[in-house]
């Protein structure tokens, strides 16, 4: 089988189905990190200003606060139900166990302790190399803890192909071809017509005889047919139920 080229990672459940998650890559995670860094900096400097008058006890408390912010900030926020620091939440990503389950306390602790190594040799160098080299974008701490950072919300396709008539496939299609055409049919509404045509031309073999300008429309027709639409039937199961 051809390895997938996108960043979907899967975890198998005891029921034998694969749960798929969309890994968050280096750019979005570094944005989240910057937001968190800003928040941490604000807290520490705020405490420093307030406690400036507190004398030496104040300095002691400040050191403790700095310690807590350094080590416990991510741990505490990632153990909330959102499983994300404020930065991650703002970027729409969260931490999960790699087996598709909610983050466990041990996993959270390990992935944040291992930051010490990810920071090496300089500016999170190990973490960046590890994230860029792996398709699931896990840093060393994630590998040790068995965790993964994924996008929280997923696009929810509606199955609405837009206006048009179903079209029987002119040649028999393999299951992979069918899947690709069905996926194209769902995405076509979100593409400009020119881009849709560009992509559709790659599948021109599946629709022999189509004019150069109408490959996309014919593919969508085939997607409808595969979905089970026929000319004499309602357009969607929702209509069919009534």
């Amino acid at each position, binding site marked *: 089988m051809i390895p997938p080229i996108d960043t979907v990672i899967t975890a198998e*459940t005891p029921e*034998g189905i694969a749960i798929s998650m969309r890994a968050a890559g280096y750019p979005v995670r570094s944005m989240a990190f910057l937001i968190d860094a800003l928040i941490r900096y604000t807290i520490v400097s705020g405490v420093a200003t307030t406690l400036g008058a507190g004398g030496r006890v104040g300095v*002691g408390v400040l050191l403790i606060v700095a*310690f807590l912010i350094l080590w416990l900030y991510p741990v505490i926020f990632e153990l909330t139900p959102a499983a994300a620091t404020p930065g991650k939440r703002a970027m729409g990503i969260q931490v999960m166990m790699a087996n598709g389950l909610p983050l466990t306390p041990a996993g959270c602790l*390990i992935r944040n*302790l291992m930051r010490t*190594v990810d920071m090496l040799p300089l500016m999170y160098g190990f973490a960046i190399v590890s994230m860029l080299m792996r398709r699931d974008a896990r840093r060393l701490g994630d*590998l*040790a803890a068995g965790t993964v950072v994924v996008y929280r919300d997923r696009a929810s396709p509606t199955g609405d192909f837009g206006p048009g008539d179903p079209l029987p496939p002119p040649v028999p299609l393999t299951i992979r071809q069918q899947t690709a055409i069905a996926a194209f049919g769902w995405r076509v509404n979100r593409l400009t017509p020119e881009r849709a045509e560009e992509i559709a031309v790659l599948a021109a073999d599946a629709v022999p005889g189509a004019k150069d300008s109408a490959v996309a429309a014919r593919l969508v027709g085939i997607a409808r047919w595969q979905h089970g639409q026929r000319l004499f039937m309602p357009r969607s199961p929702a209509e069919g139920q009534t």
Partner: protein
Amino acid sequence: MTPFDFQTANQGSWKELENVLGQRQRDLDPDRFLALYRLCCEHLALARSRGFPLHVIERLSSITSRAHQIIYRQSDVGLARVARVLLEDFPATVRRLWAYSAVAAALLMIPTIAIAIATYLNPDLILSIVDRRTAEEFEQMYSPAAQAIGRPRDIASDWMMFGFYIKNNIGIAFQCYATGVVFGLGSLFFLLANGVFGGGIAGYVASFGYSSTFFPFVATHSAFELTAIILCGGAGLRIGQSVLLPGRLTRVAALEFAARETSLIVFGAAVMLVIAAAIEAFWSSAPWVTSTAKYVCAGFCWILVLSFFLRRPRAK
């Protein structure tokens, strides 16, 4: 069956599972929930293998993964569990991995003792370890004339030192642990380096005849501090071994296993270091406590720590 018929026939159960997922967890009817979950898993597998359209697969995988998270969620961590982890699982893990702690202890203590003897005999050697200003600072910190033992003249607040010890010592312990992932080299380096530094200071201060302040100062909190750093270093060596010699597992799987095995040790060691910081800031440095009292307390603490790890009933 076309995807259309499939969806028409089954979307009732999908909708029902979606509604159930929206409810509070307490109100769930477990049998119905599990039955729906298994049914939807079956539908998802069918839809995938038949290459059904994306929106059907996406909808099914979204509801099954949400249900999966609820069904297989691990039980919550309560205070009772934290206490059990600290008092039973922590020493049991330490005992099981005792060989790593023994190696770490040797790596820390051999340079400590060797360098301490060397700087005691030849105090000038300290300058190869720290610069002149730091050496002078240490000399003055442990002078019997010091206002509070073990800290620079201008810093006199117990609370400030408590904060400093927490930030510094726990940081060192975490470093000893986590850098072990670099084939154990990081743990090796930090253990040796801390041994050289600590031994150097001890020998240097003792060579001035300040033993009567220095040793009572370190005796008590070192029961917690040294032990915790040795445990973290040992855990780091275990991590390094998993990466260097993964055995029959892949390196990543071996690392994951070793990290889970040793995470308890780091958690327990962090608690020990907070205790050590409190003792170091409020008790060890107090000049009004006599050396005898400090030694008695130190002996008690060492016995407490050692028996904590050696005498607990073995975990099943």
